[in-house]
C-alpha cells in the first residue's frame, strides 16, 4: 500500500494494536524523511535533532488528529505541523539569550548603523510626511507592549520569543500586533495619507 492509499486517520486510530503501531511507525518515517529534506544543509541540525523533531512532531500530530479536516492530504497536513515543531525549536535556540531590555531599547546589539533621518528617505514631500506621521504614531498611539512587539518583529526576532518576553500567548500576541498595525493605519488615514500614497512613496 502506498502512502497516498493509506487512510491515515483511521489507521492511526485503529483498535487493532498491530495495525495502529504500523501506522504510527509509517507516519514517523514520513515525518523524518520530510524533515531531512527541509533541513538539509543546516549545520546546526544533527541526526539526533532530526530524530527528536520527528518524535516530537509525531506526538503533536497524534494529539491533533481531531483537527484534521481532510482538505489536504493527511501527510501534507502532518508535515506542516512537523515543520512548525522543528522551526520553533531552532528559532528558540538561536534567540534564547536575548532579553526584554535588548528588545525594548538601548542594548548595544540593537544599535543600527544608519539612524533614520527623514531626508535620508528622499526629498519627496509625501514620503517625509508619511515617515514623520508614522514615527509620531508609533511613539504616541501604541502601548509599550505593542511598540516592543512591533520593534521585535522588525528586528526579525522570532514571534515565540517576543510573546514569551511580553508574558503573553501567541494568539494574544498576534492580536496585539494586529491591533497595533490597524491603529497605525488608521492614524495615517486620519492624516489624509492613502494606501496609494504609501505605495508610491515606498515603491510597493
Amino acid at each position, binding site marked *: 500500500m502506498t502512502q497516498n492509499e493509506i487512510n491515515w486517520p483511521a489507521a492511526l486510530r485503529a483498535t487493532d494494536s498491530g495495525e495502529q503501531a504500523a501506522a504510527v511507525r509509517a507516519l514517523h518515517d514520513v515525518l523524518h524523511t*520530510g524533515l531531512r*529534506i*527541509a*533541513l538539509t544543509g543546516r549545520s546546526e541540525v544533527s541526526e539526533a535533532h532530526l530524530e527528536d523533531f520527528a518524535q516530537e512532531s509525531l506526538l503533536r500530530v497524534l494529539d491533533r488528529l481531531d*483537527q484534521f479536516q481532510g*482538505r*489536504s*492530504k493527511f501527510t*501534507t*497536513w502532518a*508535515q*506542516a*505541523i512537523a*515543520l*512548525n515543531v522543528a*522551526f520553533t525549536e531552532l*528559532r528558540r535556540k538561536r534567540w534564547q539569550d536575548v532579553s526584554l531590555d535588548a528588545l*525594548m*531599547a*538601548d542594548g548595544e546589539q*540593537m*544599535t*543600527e*548603523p*544608519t*539612524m*533614520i533621518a527623514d531626508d*535620508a*528617505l528622499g526629498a519627496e514631500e509625501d514620503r517625509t510626511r*508619511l*515617515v514623520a506621521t*508614522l*514615527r509620531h504614531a*508609533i*511613539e504616541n498611539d501604541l502601548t509599550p507592549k505593542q*511598540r516592543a512587539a*512591533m*520593534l521585535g*518583529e*522588525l528586528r*526579525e526576532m*522570532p*514571534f515565540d520569543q517576543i510573546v514569551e518576553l511580553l508574558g503573553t500567548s*501567541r*494568539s494574544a500576541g*498576534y*492580536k496585539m500586533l*494586529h491591533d497595533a*498595525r*490597524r491603529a*497605525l*493605519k488608521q492614524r*495615517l488615514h486620519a492624516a489624509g495619507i492613502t*494606501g496609494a500614497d*504609501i*505605495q508610491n*512613496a*515606498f515603491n*510597493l
Partner: protein
Amino acid sequence: MRPEVQRLTREQVGGIVKMLSLTTDREFNCGECLQHVSEFAECQLVSQPVGEVIAKVEQHLALCPECREEYEALMKILKAGQ
C-alpha cells in the same frame, strides 16, 4: 522621542509601511495559518487558484516571516515528492 523610535532605520520604516499596506481588518493568526497552510501549499503546487478562506493564508504569509519560512520548507518537501 523614545530612542528605539528615533533609531528606526530606513529599512525598518519601509518594513512597517509594507506591513501596514498588507494589513486587513480580518486576518489569520499563526495557528489558523498552520491549520490551512497544507491546503494552500497543495494548490500552489499545481498552480490552482485558491478560495477566499485559503487566500487568507497567502495574506498571512506575506506578513509573517516565520510562517513563511515553514511554508517554504513545506513546498520543498512537496516538490521533492513530485
